């Protein structure tokens, strides 16, 4: 590599890193508790305990759950029902009306039912008045800095700069290390040189993991526009023949349990785990939308929506997801680290801590650049490693 090329790559590494470092530190710190969000969520959960029941005890009918929910909140609409496959719980999301929900998503609230007895275990207030839980705050800081879609795109851009910083960091790693054995940490000269070696070492060790988590982070930040694109194209085309037809009233709706059973019978290899009710902005005005997923570690991350006619209860369509949403689904576990048991989560947390060390050491190298008498000499050292003798100024 020529000296000019090295300086250009170094410039890219320095500025891409400097712009994203503060945000990356927020992402790393808030990401740490999010790795254990299931454990923390269960620990902070103050709902009533589940009724003692055998593992294979039959679940209560979704129709009874729907009736209970409507009795508790007369006049309100049910948005969706989520049937957990880990715990015996059924979550029902409700809103005062579709108009109110579309105007303000925070008007929604949920009720947690025992899947065996149908007892109410916990209810939220509306999302707006309930305040933010610890994990909500961590997630919002991690994903969008409380700034919605604009924040998601901004943090996605920061993650993109992080990827650029990693790639340019790999390019400048070679000239730095040309005369050093792998893993060398020189502690005898200056603290700056020591931190330079630690920065290079930790950065190159974590290279693959940081690239994977950075790239899947960018993809995850694009989930809102990607789902929007899908709704505007495939979903719109699917619903086009029904356009203008009268929307079913609540009294006309067929049974949600029957819709669920129809889907399970049609797709015996899949697990059905949620029903989106007709009228929801996340579903269809004319159908129950039942989300299904596979049973293997990877296919359990791949969801397929199935449409069931909300009047007749007949299965209408098993929707094929487009490639870009499949890509998004595969990128989720690789970002969250939640697919290989507790040891994988611990590895994720340790890698996250080492990433903080990479960021912190890089920041130190930048802030100490003028205070250290060795800084100038090191710049020459770098230059000499790139090409030619030391003679000649920068």
């Amino acid at each position: 590599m020529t000296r000019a090329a090295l300086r250009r790559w170094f410039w890219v590494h320095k500025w891409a890193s400097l712009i994203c470092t503060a945000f990356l530190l927020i992402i790393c710190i808030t990401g740490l508790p999010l790795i254990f969000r299931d454990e923390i969520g269960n620990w902070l959960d103050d709902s009533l305990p589940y009724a003692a029941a055998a593992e294979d005890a039959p679940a209560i009918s979704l129709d009874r759950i729907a009736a209970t929910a409507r009795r508790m909140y007369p006049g309100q609409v049910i948005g969706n029902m989520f049937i957990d496959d880990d715990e015996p719980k059924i979550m029902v999301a409700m809103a005062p009306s579709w108009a109110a929900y579309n105007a303000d998503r925070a008007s929604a609230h949920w009720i947690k039912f025992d899947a065996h007895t149908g007892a109410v275990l916990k209810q939220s207030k509306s999302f707006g008045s309930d305040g933010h839980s610890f994990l909500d705050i961590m997630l919002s800081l991690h994903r969008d800095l409380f700034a919605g879609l604009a924040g998601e795109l901004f943090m996605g851009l920061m993650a993109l700069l992080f990827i650029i910083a990693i790639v340019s960091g790999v390019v400048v790693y070679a000239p730095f290390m040309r005369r050093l054995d792998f893993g060398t940490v020189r502690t005898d000269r200056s603290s700056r040189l020591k931190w330079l070696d630690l920065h290079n070492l930790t950065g190159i060790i974590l290279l693959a993991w940081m690239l994977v988590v950075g790239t899947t982070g960018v993809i995850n930040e694009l989930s809102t526009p990607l789902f929007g694109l899908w709704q505007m194209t495939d979903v719109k085309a699917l619903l086009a023949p029904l356009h203008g037809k009268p929307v079913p009233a609540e009294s006309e709706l067929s049974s949600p349990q029957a819709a669920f059973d129809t889907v399970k019978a049609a797709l015996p290899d899949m697990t059905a785990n949620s029903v989106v009710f007709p009228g929801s902005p996340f579903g269809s005005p004319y159908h129950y939308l039942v989300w299904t997923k596979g049973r293997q570690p990877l296919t359990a991350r791949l969801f397929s929506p199935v449409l069931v006619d909300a009047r007749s209860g007949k299965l209408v369509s098993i929707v094929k997801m487009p490639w870009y949403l499949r890509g998004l689904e595969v990128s989720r576990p690789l970002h969250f680290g939640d697919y290989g048991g507790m040891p994988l989560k611990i590895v994720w947390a340790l890698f996250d801590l080492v990433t903080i060390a990479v960021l912190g050491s890089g920041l130190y190298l930048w802030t100490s650049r003028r205070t250290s008498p060795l800084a100038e000499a090191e710049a020459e050292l770098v230059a000499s490693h790139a090409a030619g003798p030391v003679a000649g100024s920068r």
Partner: protein
Amino acid sequence: MKSSAIRHGPGKLWRWPATLAILTTFGLLSALLGQGGLWWVLSWIALAIPLVVAVVCFQRQQRPVVAAMKITQTLNGSGP
């Protein structure tokens, strides 16, 4: 003109980084694509190795004399 100091070729330079990157990739995929059990254990082992390497490197630092010589020689522009 080439610098006269001892330079590692690409093979030596990238041997460890490439090995660790391959191990990491294997570890990330084996837990995702494998059917639990052994594949998870292999994933944990593969992903623990980069962490172990980091700790070992951190503890086993280069001997001061050698490092000082290398730097002095480089700064003088007269590599070994």
